[in-house]
């Protein structure tokens, strides 16, 4: 049992590096194609590599602050947020983790997330809606889930993925802009714009459309599997899967939408903060950051 958990953590750490490598290569390739098709060649790829490298490093060390800044959280207070504070304390004891920093977001939508590059720099954050609507046992289930994300190093992997996905979207934007407004620089070496250039141009446009979508799908696929694992670890930690099952029921039935969540932070939360709006049902399975709550509850109840 314990062995498999440690293996999981090792696998996750390795995966973090692989993801960083894969994304950097992907970005370099995309940049190369963009560069070729706009006539700027390798310099684009170089710049893109440097930028993605810098972004990875920045996100690696500052992901917790960045996320907290975006979501407007305040530090939790032991007296005011007694249940949240003590539950986090208790489950940290149970899992042998150092106590993470605890934050609260003033929002009626019940939700929670964890972030940070390692257990020493971890942050757990809950909304006031969650604290009001759940009892202590249900809250334990949710916090157990979040602590498992920290313990499994999911938070590190996801923090990096977010930023890298962001870089790819940014590059696609640049490319589309340079198509409309650019082209001046390449006028001198127009002879380069042979049929190869034209093909690259088409490829570049296709890439520009596809890359953010591909990047997002990768991000989602990574994140969904983790939710099941974190649910299971939470049940193991609290020895009470029913608590988390009830909490998920309450959270998924709640109609409040989290105001502070954006696409960039959606996968961090315990349940999808957007309540399946927007995308057509056909794609919803592919684009969900979380497995359906019903499925998760069913699995928890069968434990």
């Amino acid at each position, binding site marked *: 049992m314990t062995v498999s958990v440690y293996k999981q953590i090792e696998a996750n750490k390795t995966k973090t590096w692989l993801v960083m490598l894969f994304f950097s290569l992907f970005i370099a390739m995309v940049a190369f194609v963009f560069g070729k098709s706009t006539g700027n060649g390798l310099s684009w790829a170089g710049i893109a590599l440097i930028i993605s490298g810098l972004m990875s490093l920045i996100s690696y060390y500052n992901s917790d602050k960045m996320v907290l800044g975006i979501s407007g959280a305040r530090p939790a207070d032991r007296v005011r947020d007694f249940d949240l504070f*003590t539950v986090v304390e208790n489950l940290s*004891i149970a899992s042998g983790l150092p106590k993470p920093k605890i934050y609260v977001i003033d929002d009626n939508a019940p939700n929670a997330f964890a972030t940070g590059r390692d257990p020493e720099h971890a942050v757990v954050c809950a909304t006031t809606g969650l604290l009001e609507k759940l009892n202590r046992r249900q809250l334990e289930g949710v916090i157990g889930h979040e602590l498992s994300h920290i313990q499994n190093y999911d938070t590190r992997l996801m923090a990096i993925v977010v930023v890298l996905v962001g870089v790819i979207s940014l590059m696609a934007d640049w490319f589309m802009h340079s198509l409309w407004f650019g082209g001046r620089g390449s006028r001198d070496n127009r002879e380069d714009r042979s049929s190869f250039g034209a093909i690259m141009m088409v490829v570049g446009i296709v890439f520009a459309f596809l890359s953010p979508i591909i990047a997002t799908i990768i991000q989602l696929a990574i994140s969904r599997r983790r939710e099941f694992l974190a649910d299971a670890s939470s049940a193991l930690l609290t020895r009470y899967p029913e608590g988390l099952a009830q909490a998920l029921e309450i959270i998924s039935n709640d109609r409040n939408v989290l105001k502070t969540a954006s696409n960039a932070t959606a996968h961090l939360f315990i349940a999808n903060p957007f309540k399946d709006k927007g995308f057509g049902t056909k794609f919803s399975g592919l684009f969900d950051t979380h497995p359906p709550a019903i499925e998760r509850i069913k699995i928890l109840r069968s434990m």
Partner: protein
Amino acid sequence: MGALLLILIIGGFLILYIWILYNNLVTAKLRVKESWSQIDVQLRRRSDLIPNLVESVKGYAKHEKSVLENVTKARTDLMKASSPVEKAKADNQLTETLKTLFAVAENYPQLKANENFLQLQRELSDTEDKVAYARQFYNTSVLSYNTNLQIFPNVLIAKNMGFSAEEFFAATEEERKKVSVKFE
């Protein structure tokens, strides 16, 4: 020459195995020790809360003397206990007496409305959870250490290196749930 090489290789592997095993066991044993101190901290925290609780109950329910005395006695026993098994027993005893105390408190509406008493009740129930979780972590550490100690072939040499199995901090999970529900 070939035989010598073989002996050297086997000997090398044996040394490597013993080396790794020793380090693993030391690490696991330290983890057990550390998780034990975690329980100790929480038990002490619990003991520290009791006198305040007894004081605040005394103010409202003077003639529940025997209940209060039992709680105080259980606390003293807990503070005197040293081994995991003794502490587990004393802790269970204290839990029992506290249950009686809170049941009795139900008969005193004024006490139940007292902010100080409510705060203590919350703190105690939280400490109860903390003890339970610390115990869970301790038992997991002991389990992994003992397993490492007793599987083959580790069992053949671990004893000779001076390692012995650790005690579990025994208490049933149901008891934890029952108590916490009671406090809610």
